[in-house]
């Protein structure tokens, strides 16, 4: 009887310890959109550029930066920089323009990447896969059983990505628009632009999609 009691006590203590070590993994606020213009992009109120450092490195999550290494849009015409000159350590780059067509940029900037994409919006406003592998690629890059943290330059591409994923069946409660890299002032900044004015793209964990190897949907 005494032995049984000790075994039960051991089991209870073990469960409590496991529960405590897993506390961090389960301790995420639900996505909640912030106010104003930033809210229009879907940027999260609680997990954003100011607080993301607290949520990095989680084994139950993936971190995706939706920018291109070099954006064809002429951002320099409005005083900008078309290159990915930095990112948050832990985030991996997945260019949104390779996933869906990005439109709506003003004339001065011109068009962004206008090549092949994994998905296209049909006349009914639904995303259709352009390749047999499209969905598998998306599920690989954005696992449905993980929390997904999205970032870009200012929050726009990240917001579009969340919209794409939710429309294709992802759970919106697992996806966070963290906002824009340019507002990030945390300890995990990786500079890609060097003192010579060139870009060390070898630092960037980048997911390329080679459309030549994919099978077009007929």
């Amino acid at each position, binding site marked *: 009887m005494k032995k049984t009691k000790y075994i039960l006590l051991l089991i209870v203590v073990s469960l409590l310890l496991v529960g405590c070590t897993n506390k961090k993994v389960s301790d995420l606020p639900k996505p909640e959109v912030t106010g104003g*213009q930033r809210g229009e992009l879907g940027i999260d109120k609680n997990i954003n550029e100011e607080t993301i450092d607290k949520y990095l490195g989680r084994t139950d999550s993936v971190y995706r930066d939706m920018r291109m290494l070099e954006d064809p849009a002429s951002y320099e015409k409005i005083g900008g920089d078309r290159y990915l000159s930095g990112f948050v350590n832990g985030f991996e780059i997945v260019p949104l323009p390779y996933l869906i067509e990005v439109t709506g940029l003003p004339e001065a900037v011109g068009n962004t990447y206008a090549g092949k994409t994994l998905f296209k919006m049909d006349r009914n406003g639904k995303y259709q896969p352009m390749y047999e592998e499209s969905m598998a690629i998306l599920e690989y890059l954005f696992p449905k059983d993980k929390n997904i943290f999205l970032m870009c330059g200012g929050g726009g591409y990240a917001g579009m990505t969340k919209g794409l994923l939710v429309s294709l069946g992802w759970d919106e409660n697992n996806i966070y628009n963290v906002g824009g890299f*340019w*507002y990030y002032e945390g300890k995990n900044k990786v500079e890609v632009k060097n003192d010579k004015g060139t870009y060390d793209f070898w630092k960037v964990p980048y997911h390329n999609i080679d459309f030549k190897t994919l099978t077009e949907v007929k």
Partner: protein
Amino acid sequence: MNKKVLGIVVVVVLLVVIIGGCGLFFGIKAINNKPFRLEEKYYENMSIIDIKHDRYEELVDKKENFILYLTLDGCTSCVVFGSKAVDFVVKNKITVYRIEYKEFSQTDLKDEVKYAPSMMIFKKGKLKAYLDAQSDEDLQYYKDSSTLQTWFEKYIEL
């Protein structure tokens, strides 16, 4: 004079001082809230001038009245809002300055005007008003050129 009358006189005097003071306060507040003119040179041309933080510091040191438009590299909503900024400049035939976020983050206003896109109005080199990209109240002014115009007219003579 008996105490009762003295008491009434004191109360009346106090009321006059308080009401008069309030009136003076609100009068001053009304004057301070009246739309003001930018530097005359900004009404002479229609343009958006890109500046860096050192030029911004000069404008502040000179205590100028000016408009500063804050934008951000690669921010698609900034690009969209930019077209409204251009509409505003063209319609009113004025000059505004434009600063990129990287440059603006080197100024002392970085913690107050935290996000782009934003429009800032300076009076005598001090920040008078700005559009807050995280404010639900300011969201309407980001939506189209006519509401943006309304916002400016609260502060600037156009």
